[in-house]
């Protein structure tokens, strides 16, 4: 259940941004999560909903985008999408590959209102 810990970190980031941008309420938070992060969407949503109460993002909607795992073959240089955690090059069959995408755990946008007074 590392989703809960990651959501805690997420709210730390939201808080910092809200202060910096002088937001008074947040309606939407968008995140981008790579396939290497083993995030279960339902658990992440559950953790988000549990954590948002009594915060500036109490009514906020969560938008999740999942990014596939990408690897580069150290043998032939082919770039490929890793399916079902099979880290083997589809072009040359080489098993010496480097993961080059899929570790993302990013906040990509916040939609909210600013106090303009």
């Amino acid at each position, binding site marked *: 259940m590392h989703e809960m*810990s990651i959501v805690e*970190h997420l709210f730390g980031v939201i808080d910092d941004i809200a202060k910096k*941008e002088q937001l008074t309420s947040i309606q939407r938070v968008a995140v981008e999560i790579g396939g290497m992060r083993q995030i279960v969407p339902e658990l992440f949503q559950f953790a988000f909903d549990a954590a948002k109460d009594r915060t500036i993002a109490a009514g906020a909607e969560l938008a999740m985008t999942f990014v596939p795992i990408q690897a580069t073959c150290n043998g032939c240089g082919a770039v490929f999408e890793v399916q079902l955690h099979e880290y083997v090059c589809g072009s040359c069959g080489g098993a010496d590959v480097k993961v080059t995408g899929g570790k993302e755990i*990013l*906040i990509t946008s916040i939609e909210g209102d600013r106090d303009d007074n």
Partner: protein
Amino acid sequence: MIIELRQDILVANQKMVSVVKERLAQEKVLMLNIIGSPGSGKTSLLEATLAGLSERFRVAIIEADVETKRDSERLERFGVPLYHINTGGMCHLESDIILASLEKMDLAATDVVIIENVGNLICPADFDIGEHAKIAVSSVPEGDDKPSKYPVLFREAAAVVLNKTDLVPYTNFNVESFTTDLRRINGTVPLFELSATGGNGVQAWLDWLIQKVEASQA
């Protein structure tokens, strides 16, 4: 208004990771993060490792458990510096906790720090704590399907230990199937098949570790 960003959610953890890495680099200390299921034999592997390594190198241990100090008590007889962390329900370690432990250590008088993470195959794999290498520990009674079921840990591991191999004859564990699955996930990772309590195969693991420690001091 919409604020567009691309900010790492784990930025706070990553900041501490940088500090941890810097501290280790300053003193040329190698740090290993041992990850495996409850009961896979992580502490037994540490016992075998300390027995083979603690006269040659200055080893310090960070022991993490949700509850109890039992693992630390098992290791006290080796007389190495031992730092105990009770995570109180948290399923993994984060870099701030590690930094706090490192700050209590005499790093200048340490060659290698070995961390025994909380028994869990998922959460610890997701949190960088500034280690140089993650070691995945799996054991025969758990079954041969662990790499397939928990691929990220086995993918991220710099070495895999298959423990309790002395029990293979008494179980339906298929070593070939374990190895084939592991190779699909991580084609180049060193695999050490051993029995931490029986001693079979432990030397190859120690040799790998010795090489790692020596390389970090060069």
